[in-house]
Structure formats: structure tokens, C-alpha cells
């Protein structure tokens, strides 16, 4: 968090912030305890936050647990990321109709995106998820073809990030350079302090954030507050459950495409696609076409897809990637290697979700370690 202009907001005054965010009918979304997980839902006051709850995560397991203290943001990440808000699983692309049965005069129109474009505040965005939003921005907005639904959803969003004080066993943001403290891309950044008075360090990261901050009943942070914040970040880094030395990985994976480890992981992977669904950066989509019974009207909807589905690479004559080996390889090499070629950043922010939610507990940090530790230089030439 930037050192300049750090303010302190008492926990008792937190609802002033929530009300300020909600001004003008803005939808405020944040962490809520629902269905046994910390999910994303509407937040009207601090009482809606998962107060006194944490999440325990390891490969293939996730459990919410009561905490010894009353922390409001004392958990790591739930299964849902902000992708569910900004890039939802379904979005209408267009709808069309024929003038009448058997007649000509097809008309196609783009959907009304006013509901998608509703102003929103995202409260409690983890630094890993903040980095993931930055990556999706680059993929969906940063090239000549822009995703129209994402652009509408992204146009008016206030981001209130929060420092991650209690990472899970599956987290490795510190090694990916994406956390645990938010660095950029937020309007406001909070750090929850539990020593002594329950309070929040608040920093503004944009003019909009600065205006919000100016209207809050805060006091200037003292040295003791700053130190407490720095200690929280340091202890968070120390507690990070996993670590991935990402530097050499993109290049090393390029030379490991025929490594025997792919067969090993393919024997365990179910090709279920859970990892891609929970991943906050995965952006691949398919389309669904619906028509009425007489074919007079039609609509096309963009839906999340996964590179693990058999049809993903289908071209006439059969799928390019027939085996789980090739699909897992596509997923992992995209995340950790070719994403860098395409977008100048890995497609992984170290949130650990794919490790937690893999039904058979496959851990990408372990797979990467095995793959780049001893890599096969010469790809075996394809049989002619």
C-alpha cells in the first residue's frame, strides 16, 4: 500500500463507507457467508460481512471455520471470484427475428446492456483478484476487439481492495508478485487491524477514491497504525501456504512439452474443468444458439467454456486435443507460459482456487515444479 496519505477508519464507522458506496443506487457487492462458503453478495452494512469467519483450504478441501477474533475480512478467497460479476457465466450477444414465417427481412440487434452497466462497488477485493481483474481487462478490453458485455460492466466500477492478512494453505500470491497487499488498480485500499481498537487503514488509489476518502470520518494514521499494517503484510507473506519461483517457468515450459510428467498428471486429472471455472482469469467461452420452434427468431449467448471439454478444440474430423494429457498441458502452459507471450503477464495470480477446488487435489505449483525441474529439451518429432 502506498505510504502517502494513510488514514484510519474506525470499524464503528465502516457503514459510513458502505453508505457512501451505495449512493445514487450503486450496487455494493462484497463477501457474504452463504451455502457454507464465503461468496459474493449484496452488502448493505458491515453486519452482512462474514464477521468472525475464516476459510481453511488445502488441495481438494475448503471449509469455513469460526475465528478466535471478530475479523470481518479474516479469510482468503472463496470459490467465486469477481469474474462472476464482471464476466458472468452467461451473457446475451444478440437476438434476431425474421419478418415472419417464410418471409425475408431478418433483423439482428445487440442486447440492451443497461442492467449489465449498472454502477457497482466491489468491496473487499483481494490483491490476487485485483490482479486478475487487471488481466481480464487486458484480455477483454486491451485489444482491437473488445468484449461488449465486459466493457459495459467494467465502465462504472468502484474497487475497494483489502489487504490479505490470513492467506490460505493454497495461496501463493506473494511469489507471483500479486499480493498480499493491493498495489494498483483500486479506488480505495483497506487494511483491517485487530490489535487494540478494531480499525481500518484506508488509502486512495484514484481521484474517485480520494473523493470518497475525504468524505469519511477518518483520522490521519499514526506510526503505530502504519507499523501494525506493515506487520500484518509481513506475517501474511510468511504464512503463505505455497510458493512458485515463477521467473524461469515460461521459458522452461516451452521446452517441456513432451515431458513424461504430462502422462503422470493425466492419469490423475478427471478433465472436469473445475479449475478453469474457479480461475479468476480464465476467459474462454462458447456460444449457445437458441431458436423458437419455427426458426423465426434466434438469440446467441456467450457461455463460459473450458479447455478441458472434449469439444473445445473440435474441428471437422475430430478434436485437436483428444487426450487429457494434451488438455491439461494446454491449460497449464497457457496459464504459465503462452499467456506471457500473448499478454505480457502470466495468466495466474496465485489465488490457489484451482488447487482447492480440484476434486482430486492436483496442485499446479507441484506440477510446475516437477515439469521445470527436469525438462526434456528436444520435443519428440511427430511421426509422419
Amino acid at each position, binding site marked *: 500500500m502506498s505510504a502517502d496519505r494513510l488514514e484510519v477508519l474506525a470499524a464503528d464507522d465502516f457503514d459510513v463507507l458502505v453508505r457512501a458506496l451505495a449512493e445514487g443506487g450503486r450496487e455494493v457487492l462484497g463477501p457474504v457467508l452463504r451455502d457454507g462458503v464465503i461468496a459474493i453478495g449484496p452488502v448493505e452494512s458491515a453486519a452482512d460481512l462474514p464477521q468472525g469467519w475464516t476459510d481453511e483450504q488445502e488441495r481438494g478441501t475448503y471449509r469455513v471455520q469460526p475465528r478466535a477474533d471478530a475479523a470481518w475480512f479474516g479469510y482468503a478467497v472463496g470459490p467465486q471470484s469477481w469474474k462472476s460479476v464482471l464476466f458472468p457465466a452467461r451473457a446475451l*450477444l444478440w437476438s434476431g427475428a425474421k419478418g415472419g414465417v417464410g418471409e425475408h427481412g431478418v433483423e439482428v440487434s445487440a442486447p440492451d446492456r443497461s442492467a449489465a452497466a449498472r454502477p457497482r462497488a466491489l468491496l473487499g477485493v483481494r490483491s490476487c483478484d485485483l490482479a486478475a481483474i487487471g488481466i481480464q481487462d487486458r484480455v477483454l478490453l486491451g485489444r482491437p476487439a473488445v468484449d461488449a458485455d465486459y466493457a459495459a460492466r467494467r465502465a462504472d466500477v468502484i474497487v475497494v481492495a483489502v489487504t490479505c492478512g490470513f492467506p490460505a494453505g493454497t495461496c501463493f500470491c506473494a511469489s507471483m508478485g500479486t499480493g498480499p497487499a493491493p498495489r*494498483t488498480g483500486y479506488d480505495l485500499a483497506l487494511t483491517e487491524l485487530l490489535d487494540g481498537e478494531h480499525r481500518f487503514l484506508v488509502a486512495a488509489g484514484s481521484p474517485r477514491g480520494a473523493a470518497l476518502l475525504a468524505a469519511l470520518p477518518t483520522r490521519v494514521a499514526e506510526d503505530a497504525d502504519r507499523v501494525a499494517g506493515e506487520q500484518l503484510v509481513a506475517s501474511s507473506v510468511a504464512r503463505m501456504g505455497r510458493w512458485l519461483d515463477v521467473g524461469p517457468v515460461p521459458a522452461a515450459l516451452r521446452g517441456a512439452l513432451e515431458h513424461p510428467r504430462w502422462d503422470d498428471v493425466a492419469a490423475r486429472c478427471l478433465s472436469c474443468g473445475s479449475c478453469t471455472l474457479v480461475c479468476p482469469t480464465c476467459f474462454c467461452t462458447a456460444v449457445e444458439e437458441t431458436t423458437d420452434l419455427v*426458426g423465426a427468431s434466434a438469440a446467441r449467448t*456467450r457461455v463460459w467454456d473450458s479447455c478441458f471439454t472434449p469439444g473445445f*478444440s473440435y474441428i471437422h474430423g475430430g478434436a485437436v486435443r483428444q487426450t487429457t494429457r494434451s488438455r491439461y498441458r494446454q491449460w497449464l502452459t497457457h496459464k504459465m507460459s503462452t499467456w506471457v507471450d500473448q499478454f505480457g503477464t502470466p495468466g495466474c495470480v496465485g489465488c490457489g482456487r484451482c488447487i482447492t477446488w480440484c476434486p482430486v487435489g492436483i496442485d499446479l505449483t507441484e506440477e510446475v515444479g516437477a515439469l521445470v525441474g527436469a525438462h526434456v529439451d528436444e520435443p519428440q518429432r*511427430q511421426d509422419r
Partner: protein
Amino acid sequence: MASLAELPRAAAAAAPAAGPLVPRVVRVERVHRETRDTVTLALRLPPGDPALEYRPGQFDMLGPLGTGEVPISVSGGAPAAGTVEHTVRDVGGVTRLLCGLRPGDELLLRGPYGTAWDAEDGVGGDVVLVAGGIGLAPLRPALLQVLAARDRYRNVVLLYGTRTPRDLLFSRELDRLRRRRDVVLEHTADYAEAGWRGRVGVVTDLVGRAPFDPGTTLALVCGPEVMMRLTATALVDRGVPASRVRVSLERAMLCGVGLCGHCQLGPLFVCTDGPVVSWDTAAPLLVIRER
């Protein structure tokens, strides 16, 4: 990633509300049956439609209303007169419907997408086009472009392989080409039929004897992936630099603009970084099985 902070609001505000995935409605003007399973559709486009500005090698997404859409290369047309052509082989659900369209029918189109052959890079030297089957369709506009400025190139060679002697696309045009003395056209069929007196064998076999100077050649290759692999290898073996051999890749394409992720091949989005790529880019990617 400092620049990312400014990206969303700026890009979101500048983005056209409809987005790139909303198709235009176009009308079939003419239908020409090429072979028993392939037709050429001439589509009438409204004046100013971006698809009229296509470059040879680019493709459009085509689909009848309510049935999905598929990538189909532009095979020619008269943009000045407001038409573009697509040559479609009936291999499945959507292509069957496309092949069944009649003059006056409407369909949906988005495009043009992807990279081009850029045949003009061959000016001053020999141009060799190698087509397998339906692969002649994407090459046709490049050939027409070269012939329109014939005197700027040295040898112009078209090597064309089809399954049977009857699977010939654009047969009247090929007859005219065969009579030209400034174009070399070689046709071979995989399987002979009664009465066929032409060549039998795969198109790759023609590369070795064809009249071109490898040092000045630009080669454009389109066909099934194995055919392109063997042909490119034969061209390189004859001395054409891999960077002067271009192929048109086929991958699953749902969006055509780099958003859906389906067409990825290693670092490439084949829809935007391709479909036309040079062999020095493609070869190391295609060597990995199931990449």
C-alpha cells in the same frame, strides 16, 4: 501493470455498444455449384460494409439465422460491385445449410478477420501456390491478385491436388488458366477414375519438378494440415526459406476476433495471428502432437 488502472474506463467508454460479435444480415445473390459437395455463394453486401474491404486469405464468420456460424474464407468477388464470394464444402451441420442456400436467402456475416496471404511480397520473384481440395478457395483471391499484376512477378505456378478428378473447383477458370502460357498449372488426383488421363498422386509430389527458383520464391499453401506439413517440408527441402512459405491454419473458431480462446495454438490466436502464418512460425508448433 501500472497502465492497467486507466484501461477499463477508457476502453469501456470507447467500445462500441454492440460489440464485434453482432453479425450483419446479407443476401445471397448467386449460387454456383462447383462439385457434388461444394458451392460458391456470391453475397450482396450493403455499400461500405467492411467485409468488402477483405484482403486475400481473410475469412468471414457465416451462419443462417439460428444455426451457429462457421469460419469460411473469402474466395473472391467483386467488391466494387458490392459482392464477395465464399466457397463452402458441405461437411456437417452448418456447412450443409450454407450449401443449401438459394438466391435471395438471407444469412448472417461477420468479418473480415485474420491475416492475409500478402502475395505482393512475392513481386519480382516466382509465386508458387499449392492447394489441396477446398484449400484452393482461400488461395483464389491471391491468385487473381497476382494475375491482375502478372508482369510484376516471374513464374506463376499453381499446383492443385484433389481427391478424385471430378472434385475440381472453379473448373472453367482453371480451363482458361491452362491455356495461358504465363501460368503453370498442374493438377493431380489422389484416385484415378475410368477415363482420367491426368496425373495420379498427392500434390506434394509435384513440388519437386515444378518450375520455380527457390531463392526468389514466395509459396502459399492451403489444404489439410498433413498436406501443408508435407508440402512446406518439400518446399524447404528444395531451398525455399521457411519464412517465404505461408500456410493457412485451421483451428476451432467461435469468435474470429481473439476473445473465445478456442483457436489457440501455442502462443497464437489463429483467428487474429493467423490463419495465414509463415512456416517458420507454424512448423515448431505443429511438430507437437495435439498442441
